[in-house]
């Protein structure tokens, strides 16, 4: 007897019907890079996997006016190869390229990364930095949530039973905004990061910051923009002193949210340097 059944969905409508079937407890299957590791060791808490990895509507990467649409079944490789994302979301492209090795990037999807919501999920800081919204669909209808509200903690989300992430949207950043992603990992390719950072920014004609976003990864239980740090940078000239101060402030905000723990001593120094370095890349004139 197989431990679970498999069915392939060919459209969002079909996936949602299958996922909401009251008779068979079902879960989406994307690239399987988290699911297959999980079911190897644990008893699956569902009776059926609904494969959404080839649903055409969930594979798109498009620009519609001032908005970018990225399907939830887009793989890291597809995202990294997309000219639309290369132009509008360098931080997301860099995050995708930092994931696993090529085989993981060819299978793993953005939707799976967000739904799995590991503390160290690499797409989260960049999606949050871009103010990305996750679009969810179930038999009871559609709703949209900021990614930072969808992920409620490590491996916890506001996804309800039968709900599918169909796609993400985010506003095209204003002209001239650059973004960047940096991650600390023990090994270049396969390390699952313990800290990462996405930043976006722009300087005005006077060389002062007129747009800035900062979103650390794996630093707080819920991913969020560090608006406190953004506020101290806005309108200022990004001198070495200011960027160093922004780094310290980032560490302070993190500690304010998580309290001091065994890992704080390391993380405090690391996040400071990471914020400074990533902001420097985003704000490079």
């Amino acid at each position, binding site marked *: 007897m*197989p*431990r*679970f*059944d*498999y069915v*392939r969905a060919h459209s969002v409508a079909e996936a949602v019907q299958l996922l909401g079937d009251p008779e068979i407890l079902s879960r989406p*299957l994307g*690239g*399987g*890079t988290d*699911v*297959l*590791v999980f*079911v*190897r060791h644990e008893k699956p808490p569902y009776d059926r*996997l609904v*494969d959404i*990895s080839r649903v055409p509507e969930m594979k798109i990467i498009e620009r519609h006016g001032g908005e970018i649409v990225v399907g939830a079944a887009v793989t890291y*490789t597809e995202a990294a190869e997309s000219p639309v994302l290369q132009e509008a979301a360098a931080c997301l492209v860099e995050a995708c390229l930092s994931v*696993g*090795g*090529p*085989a*993981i990037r*060819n*299978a793993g999807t953005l939707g799976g990364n967000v739904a799995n919501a590991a503390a160290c999920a690499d797409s989260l800081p960049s999606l949050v930095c871009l103010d990305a919204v996750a679009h969810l669909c179930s038999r009871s209808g559609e709703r949209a949530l900021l990614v930072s509200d969808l992920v409620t903690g490590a491996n916890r989300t506001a996804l309800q039973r039968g709900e599918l992430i169909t796609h993400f949207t985010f506003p095209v950043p204003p002209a001239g905004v650059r973004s960047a992603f940096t991650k600390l990992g023990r090994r*270049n*390719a*396969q390390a699952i990061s313990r800290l990462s950072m996405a930043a976006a920014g722009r300087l005005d004609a006077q060389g002062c910051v007129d747009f800035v976003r900062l979103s650390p990864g794996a630093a707080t239980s819920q991913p969020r923009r560090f608006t406190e740090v953004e506020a101290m940078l806005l309108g200022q000239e990004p001198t070495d002193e200011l960027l160093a101060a922004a780094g310290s402030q980032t560490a302070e905000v993190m500690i304010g949210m998580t309290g001091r723990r065994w890992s704080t001593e390391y993380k405090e120094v690391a996040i400071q340097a990471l914020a400074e370095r990533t902001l420097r890349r985003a704000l490079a004139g």
Partner: protein
Amino acid sequence: MLIQFTVNKKSVAVEAPADITLLDLLRDYLGLTGAKEGCAVGECGACSVLMDGRLVNSCLVLAPQADGSEILTIEGVHAPDGGLNDLQENFITYGAVQCGICIPGMVLAGEALLLETLTPTRAEIRTALAGNLCRCTGYQQIVDAIEATAQQRRNQ
């Protein structure tokens, strides 16, 4: 359930449980034992195959996910006469093979890269091999073999 796909250019239809991996399907149902199970959790690359032209870890692909796709395993990599192809020859020439357990995956990772570009830098070759572990060679010779093959194929 019935799983139908193409493996090494041959169509196959296999009756198998829905919850096994593509790696088990290849090894236990099709007798294609070139893909190895090293870690079974995506860390080592010994189970690498190409799925629709892209490198994947077959231990992380659910067998029915392969339905309708084209799979290339190491058994499908060879010269037209059935002998070793140029990349495989170069693995030997450059001393890139020791115990051999990682080699099917390494060759497929190399072929995946060479499908994309025939002008890879050494850094790009290393990135392409980042998910494939070798306990024996120290990688240098494997990179050499792929680099040499790229150069030869460019000149063809």
